[in-house]
């Protein structure tokens, strides 16, 4: 079918999901685009950023390399993590990821497949956890499957802003997409973090009114696990991650959610 006929057919059927993410992304990782992935066997050594900003993810250590070409969702390739120590880390300087931890707003989309896991796993990390009071951007699945989202300065009493237990839960053995909108300067403290599971805004709100961090994170962004720790690697697979250094409008959030839902059959 020609592209024009395809558009007409989609319009007639009511399927108007965007075919690409909203422009302006800072980083974009798309597991279905295998031309952006390099492998040794099935082990991923590099996953290239499609944004044009060259924020590529790398892993030089064999035991920490997730797999590609081994699992699909909606007929599309996913990056499979072992739930033990797999992690991919940006090869950029940590300063490239400062927008995630300081007063800059950000919007983070992730389409993932969660395997059954009775423990927790963490999908983002920019901190050296052995040091208190440092910039952090943490998206974590609690052992009870609720979500934990923390941003800003990590210290023994918590984060600058965080939601410690979402009302909605990560669904085992299912693909799903989550959205984290971070708006640190919002005049209403409760609205400084908004979390969506698929298209549903979570009723949990930001619980902290700390100050934003101003220094660079200790480490560049890692996806799917922790850089200096172990045991909290994603038990599941990543379909696609899109990151903005801006606060997307509600319409743009909806459009990206529709894009991910349609593409990954969620």
């Amino acid at each position, binding site marked *: 079918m020609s592209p024009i006929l395809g558009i007409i057919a989609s319009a007639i059927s009511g399927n108007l999901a965007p075919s690409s993410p909203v422009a302006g992304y800072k980083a974009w990782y798309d597991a279905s*685009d*295998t*031309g952006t*992935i*390099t*492998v*040794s066997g099935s*082990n991923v*050594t*590099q996953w290239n950023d499609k944004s044009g900003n060259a924020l590529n993810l*790398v*892993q*030089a*250590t*064999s*035991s*920490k*390399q997730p797999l*590609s*070409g081994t699992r699909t969702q909606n007929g599309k*390739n996913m990056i499979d993590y*072992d739930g*033990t*120590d797999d992690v991919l880390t940006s*090869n950029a300087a940590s300063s490239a990821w400062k927008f995630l931890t300081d007063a800059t707003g950000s919007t983070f989309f992730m389409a993932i497949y969660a395997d059954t896991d009775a423990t927790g796993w963490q999908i983002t990390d920019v*901190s050296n*956890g*052995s040091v208190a009071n440092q910039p952090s951007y*943490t998206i*974590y699945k609690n052992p009870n499957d609720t979500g*934990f989202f*923390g941003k800003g300065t990590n210290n*023994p009493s918590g984060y600058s802003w965080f939601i410690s237990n979402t009302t909605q839960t990560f669904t085992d053995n299912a693909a799903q997409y989550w959205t984290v909108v971070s708006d640190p300067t919002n005049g209403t403290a409760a609205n400084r973090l908004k979390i969506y599971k698929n298209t549903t805004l979570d009723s949990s709100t930001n619980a902290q009114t700390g100050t934003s961090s101003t220094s660079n994170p200790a480490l560049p962004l890692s996806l799917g696990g*922790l850089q*200096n*720790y*172990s*045991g*909290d690697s994603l038990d599941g697979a990543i379909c696609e991650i899109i990151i903005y250094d801006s606060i997307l409008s509600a319409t743009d959030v909806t459009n990206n959610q529709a894009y991910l839902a349609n593409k990954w059959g969620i």
Partner: protein
Amino acid sequence: MNLYEWETLADFNNWHDNLCTLLNYPLYPVNQLTGETDFNSQPTTTYTSYWEIENKIIAFVEQKYADGLTLTNLQPPKPER
């Protein structure tokens, strides 16, 4: 993978260097779509990484490479949340 322990970092490095040689590291990857070797992409240069816990060295190792190694009950550190 299981966790194994070494008495000293020198012991670990000796074992790890031998394994990396056996595995012909560095390994240059191929583009998954084209199958062509990509010398500008991240090569695999090491097999595993270690932690120093209670004066021992511990690391994850696949069973196929673990002949002669000692299993451990020590665990890597976890961040506080």
